[in-house]
């Protein structure tokens, strides 16, 4: 992909993802990303309902998914994707993430090392499901910032 897909996320929204990851540490947190187009305006924290051990898995139930989608529609916005944390692991998608990914959605991953939220990255499933492609997170100060500046340095891949 020549140009990274850009996801703009307001500073306070980003902060709430980090806070959620720290709160549930050492377990994974998860939630929905809501907004319009490429701009995330709100996140909705969701319960992690995995039965495989929340230290390394998360699962959003269909009922919670449906509710998130409905809520977004009611608010006149869209469901843009989901976020989850990787406790004590890097902020890059696992094979398990890839195996379970949905197209079009933005997947934000925040690494929480020793209880402190660190790198945050965003990923999109390639249409043939073969890989995740990394997008660029614009950590704008407000949700209307359209700075095209990509911030790979902050994603720990620099």
């Amino acid at each position, binding site marked *: 992909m020549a140009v990274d897909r850009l996801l703009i996320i307001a500073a306070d929204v980003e902060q709430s993802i980090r806070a959620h990851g720290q709160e549930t540490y050492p377990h*994974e947190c*998860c939630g929905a990303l809501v907004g319009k187009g490429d701009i995330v305006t709100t996140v909705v924290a969701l319960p992690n309902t*995995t039965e*495989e051990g929340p230290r*390394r*898995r*998360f*699962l*959003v*139930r*269909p009922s919670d*998914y*449906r509710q998130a*989608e409905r809520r977004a529609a009611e608010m006149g916005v*869209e*469901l843009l994707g*989901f976020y*989850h944390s*990787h*406790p*004590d*692991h890097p902020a890059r*998608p*696992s*094979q*398990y*993430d890839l195996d*379970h*990914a*949905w*197209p*079009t*959605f933005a*997947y934000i991953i925040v690494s929480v090392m020793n209880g402190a939220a660190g790198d945050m990255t965003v990923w999109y499933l390639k*249409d*043939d*499901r073969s890989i995740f492609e990394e997008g660029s997170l614009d950590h704008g100060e407000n949700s209307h910032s359209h700075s095209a500046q990509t911030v790979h340095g902050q994603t720990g891949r620099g």
Partner: protein
Amino acid sequence: MAKILIPTPLRPYTDKQDAVDASGATVGELLADLTRRHAGLKPHLYNDQGKLRSFVNVYVNDEDIRYLQKEQTPVTAGDTVSIIPSVAGGVDAVADVGRVRLQSNQKTPPELTNDEIKRYSRHLIMPEVGVEGQRKLKASKVLCIGAGGLGSPAAMYLTAAGVGTLGIVDFDVVDFSNLQRQILHGTPDVGRSKLASAKDRLQALNPNVEIVTHEVAISSENALKLFEPYDVIVDGTDNFPTRYLVNDACVLTGKPNAYGSIFRFEGQASVFATKDGPCYRCLYPEPPPPGLVPSCAEGGVLGVLPGIIGVIQATETIKLILGAGEPLIGRFLIFDALRMKFRELKLRKDPDCPVCGTHPTVTALIDYEQFCGVRPAAAEATPLNTATEITSVELKQRLDRGDRLKIVDVREPNEYQINRIPGSELIPLGDVPKRVNELNPDDEIVVHCKSGVRSAKAADFLRSVGFKRVLNLKGGILDWVDKVDPSQPKY
């Protein structure tokens, strides 16, 4: 005709519509029709085997079809079918750092003495080790299979690092040809048992470590019992039957296998047989045909190479004990000393693996010699086939009698430089087909190599192209040097 509700991520495949119509009497038929109309949906709904993906939920009205009749659930006009995602993810089990449970993790690790604190001070000041980590090392028990090329550096560094107990399995004697790489042993040790030599060296290095020697050939009968007290097994074996045996025994006993292997200038390392990680059989379900992959004794090995790979095995063992860093689980490291490059292949646990898969077929140790197609001690055990083989003593007698024999040495030129049978002609095995016209099919030909394996192949080839009288020198030049010409060096 029924209405299907499409979730947000799939709408790009349905022209952005959140509801589309499809026809069919069951959910299965309906979805088949849906993916016919909107082909882009298919890979996201179905896996390669044509089954609905586990995270795709289908509801008829408000009922999950899993609790109805699955894809056979009937659908009538007016029903609403919804495709609803489960959103799942998480970190890979194989990268699940520091969570490999070791036997010694289950008890409180011993305190360090003042001497030990001084000795391990360079460990203790690193947060990744610290007093806590050093105590874990002190509590740990590691078993090295082999006190040879890989076992030497691995055992030395593990001992220096302060593991509590280091076991070594070996039954060999130190030979001059070992000293180029097996740094546990020195020149005065030649002729001694490797274990006695190893124990002296390791105990001198660190008297705090308990060195336990197991002077046995590891076998299907003793492996499980042998492994039982240990936390991690370091595989330093040099042959396929033992490698499969160690792998299977590690899986069956639940012990991680710090694996390494070496050949010429290339080495490999990985960590196998952890709970969620792949094992050696996930990578190589079947051994190579016997003789296809030469051993170090046949092909040679750079003396430094086991130093590098053995130290990687020791590093991985220490990381497993500490629960630090990212272990080589699910990763296969390949090192090329000539190009000085490391490559890494991703390995996945094979759900169909016969030993560590979901439904294992190997649930006890088997006959690994047979599995690898190796007949033990074939040279001694099988009687001489006089139609196709000749012994070195007989060859000497016939040469002395003045019989006209053409001796073809199928080894490599550098081996020919070390020792040779007088009057022999060198045609390396790989060159035999293209140089076959240099030989006379009517001559009586004796082929030989180092020990008889390569020359057996050359003999088969010559017979297949019409040579009538081809004899393979049984036991190769090694036997010739032993029985006929001890003045020549052996390698």
